[in-house]
């Protein structure tokens, strides 16, 4: 990572503030009850909780991808109302649980965000991509390799690399380590930790592997609609 650039952006963007968040799912269950999220970088926060407790809904609500009621979204002192959601998401980026890919090659999959208007001139670096792909052991694939044959675990690692290359000030990751063998999961978790320190960034991870929680700055448990 380019240190000068990251420190410059880092001073520009202070903390993440999002809330209070209320969310009732389509079945009428009230999953999130007035949760407020507030962190300053560098932070690695791990969120755990029983399945079905609304962890995914919480991340999607922060990112603005569901119809949760969110009173305020703020980065530093800049507020992002609903009409600025695309801009918000380019800074508060969610790695989806199923690690979907777009049709095309590995390069297409890593580079597409840089073509968006909200990329604001950020450029895709093939060199950084190759370094990260090596770290997560996807370097046996060529960048021109089509993604449609990738396994679940490979897609998760690709999704992580995409997020780290994009390097937003806030990265939300929904079970980024699922489907990975313990050793690889450790590597990926360390990458997330490193990213939070170097950029510096706020990284919020939903994880069910409790053992990783020990290395996090903050561990929160989502239960009965609130964070503990």
């Amino acid at each position: 990572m380019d240190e000068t650039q990251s420190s410059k952006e880092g001073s520009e963007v202070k903390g993440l503030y999002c809330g209070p968040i209320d969310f009732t799912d389509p079945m009428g269950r009230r999953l999130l009850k007035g949760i407020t999220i507030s962190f300053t970088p560098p932070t690695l926060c791990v969120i755990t909780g029983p399945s079905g407790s609304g962890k995914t809904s919480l991340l999607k609500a922060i990112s603005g991808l569901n119809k949760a009621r969110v009173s305020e979204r703020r980065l530093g002192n800049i507020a992002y109302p609903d009409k600025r959601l695309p801009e918000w998401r380019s800074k508060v980026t969610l790695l989806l649980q199923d690690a979907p890919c777009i049709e095309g090659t590995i390069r297409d999959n890593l580079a597409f965000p840089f073509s968006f208007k909200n990329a604001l001139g950020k450029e895709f670096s093939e060199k950084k991509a190759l370094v990260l792909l090596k770290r997560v052991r996807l370097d046996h694939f060529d960048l021109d390799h089509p993604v449609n044959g990738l396994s679940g675990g490979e897609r998760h690692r690709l999704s992580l690399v995409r997020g780290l290359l994009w390097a937003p000030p806030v990265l939300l990751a929904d079970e980024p380590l699922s489907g990975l063998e313990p050793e690889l999961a450790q590597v990926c978790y360390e990458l997330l930790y490193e990213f939070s320190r170097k950029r510096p960034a706020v990284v919020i991870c939903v994880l069910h592997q409790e053992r990783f929680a020990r290395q996090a700055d903050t561990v929160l448990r989502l239960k009965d609609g609130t964070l503990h």
Partner: protein
Amino acid sequence: MGHYIELSAFDLFLAVGLIVIASVISVSLRLGLTRSLVVAASRCMLQLGAIGIVLKKIFQINSPILVMGWLAIMLVMAAREAVRRSKSKYRGINMDALSTMTFTSLVVGLLVTQVVIKVRPWYDPQYVIPIFGMIFGNSLNGICLCLDRFLEYLRSRKQEVELRLCFGATRQEAVIEGARQAVRTGMIPIINNMTVAGIVSLPGMMTGQIVAGASPVQAVAYQIVIMFMIAASNALGAMLLATLAARRLISNYGIELNEK
């Protein structure tokens, strides 16, 4: 205009013999189509007969208001048919189809009748009605194909769209690939038609003009205008509809198919 052979009622009666041939085949091969065939043939006769009478009146009266009124009726029918034919529907589809067809046919139709052909008076039904009719009929087709493709894309690639949104894509950026595919699909028929025009098929309008006694060169000239006109209206219609549909189906929160 040159001469052409007028058809009498008896000639039409003879033509019924052709439907009888088709019916006999249907019965003997047990296609189970006899009923539909007879119904379709009757509808065809009644509808065209009625149109013949109406058009004759409109041509006689030759009033701009009447011509516009008739075009409006054709437009609404075409938009309804476009919606009826597409496999999937969403809330607001009628409005989208109608506004797309209105805009497209106005732009392309006025260009062709007023700028290219220079119809005088501007509402001359002899030109205005068939030309707008062809625009309606063809953009209807294009719109249907485009709509089906686009909704199919949104349904099957929901996650891809969501992924793009996650990285800060605007709504347009998130579905541009689907819109591209849909517009492409909507334009394939006219591209195919232009490619084989004159070789495999003699297009309908050109054939009609030749039978009516126009010089083949003039008939060809008209047909070229018509083909380009259809290409333009298909492209414009498909693009516009994909844009409108995207506005309704992609909210700030992602895809909401709202299917009916």
